[in-house]
């Protein structure tokens, strides 16, 4: 029987965000938006879902007078991502 894929990660935008954060321990909201091509509103919603699940942390600060949002992946997020990728491999033809 095939393992169940984490529904939180099996969403294109959330998976894209997590994949970026796997390669870069911290990334700015603007960078995530540019890289994924998502709208700011949609990205905010998906980031909030990942934060609520404890997969990422979100830190709000200021760069000069400009607000800045920095996302970082957590150990829980790394574990979830690894489990997701392992499960994914079972779905692919051997």
């Amino acid at each position, binding site marked *: 029987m095939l393992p169940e*894929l984490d529904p939180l990660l*099996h*969403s*294109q*935008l959330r*998976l*894209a965000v997590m*994949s*970026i954060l*796997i*390669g*870069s*321990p*911290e*990334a*700015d909201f*603007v*960078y995530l938006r540019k*890289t*994924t*091509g*998502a709208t700011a509103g949609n990205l905010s919603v998906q980031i909030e879902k990942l934060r609520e699940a404890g997969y990422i942390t979100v830190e709000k600060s200021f*760069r*000069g007078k400009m607000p800045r949002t920095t996302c970082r992946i957590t150990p829980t997020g790394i574990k979830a991502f690894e489990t997701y*990728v392992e499960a*994914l491999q079972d*779905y*692919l033809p051997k």
Partner: protein
Amino acid sequence: MEDTFSEKESLDLIRQMIDTAKNNLQQGTGKVFLLWGYLVAGISLATTILLITLPGDNRYYAYYLWFLMAFGAPFHYLLIRKMERERLVMTYIDKMMRWVWIAFTVSILTVVIGLVLSSLLIYPALSAAKATDDFARLFQWIFMPGSAGAYQPVDQFHFWFQWLFIPPFMLCLYGIALFITGKAYGFRPLYLGGIICWGSVLLLLVTIHHPYVLEIQQIFLCFCAITGYVIPGHLLRKKEGSDVARA
């Protein structure tokens, strides 16, 4: 982005997103290389000229020019602060390279501070004091235990000779930092600069007994600063316009 997708699309997406964060040097790095490259090249060139033109033992005072390196620090701080403000993403390589360059700086500062203390403070103080002075005896006991009670003032060469090993040592450190950074970011001019530094170390050690060793060392420092910092710095500035992460 669509919210439903196949498992294969999922893996492709992961690969694609990880690739976007591949290791590009951050915007502004070129300026940092140019700052230190031009500073080292300028100072080593000026030192060479003074070594040739100053008469007798006064030529060794040319090395005081290297204190001008300290002027690079505030500019470096401003450049780094600007880069940090503009940074949008930090990769694991960025993090690791930050520690490599911190280790490089600490290594250089440790050696320089040690030598400055030795050649500009302790040795001249010993030379100026009479061997019978308690002060001189104490310092002899700490720093030159074998010579206690038999200390004789020495000539200018002995104030400076330890600096003879500094250019090869510095170039070795330059080589390590440039090679690692160049390989980590896949930027060939940087790691070639590192290899040139190592080649120069070999040449400087082979020529250490040459009568013009001091001038040769400064010329090689200048050469390595240009090949390892200035040229890669300009190439990075050019590259920043295209694919260096604006972050």
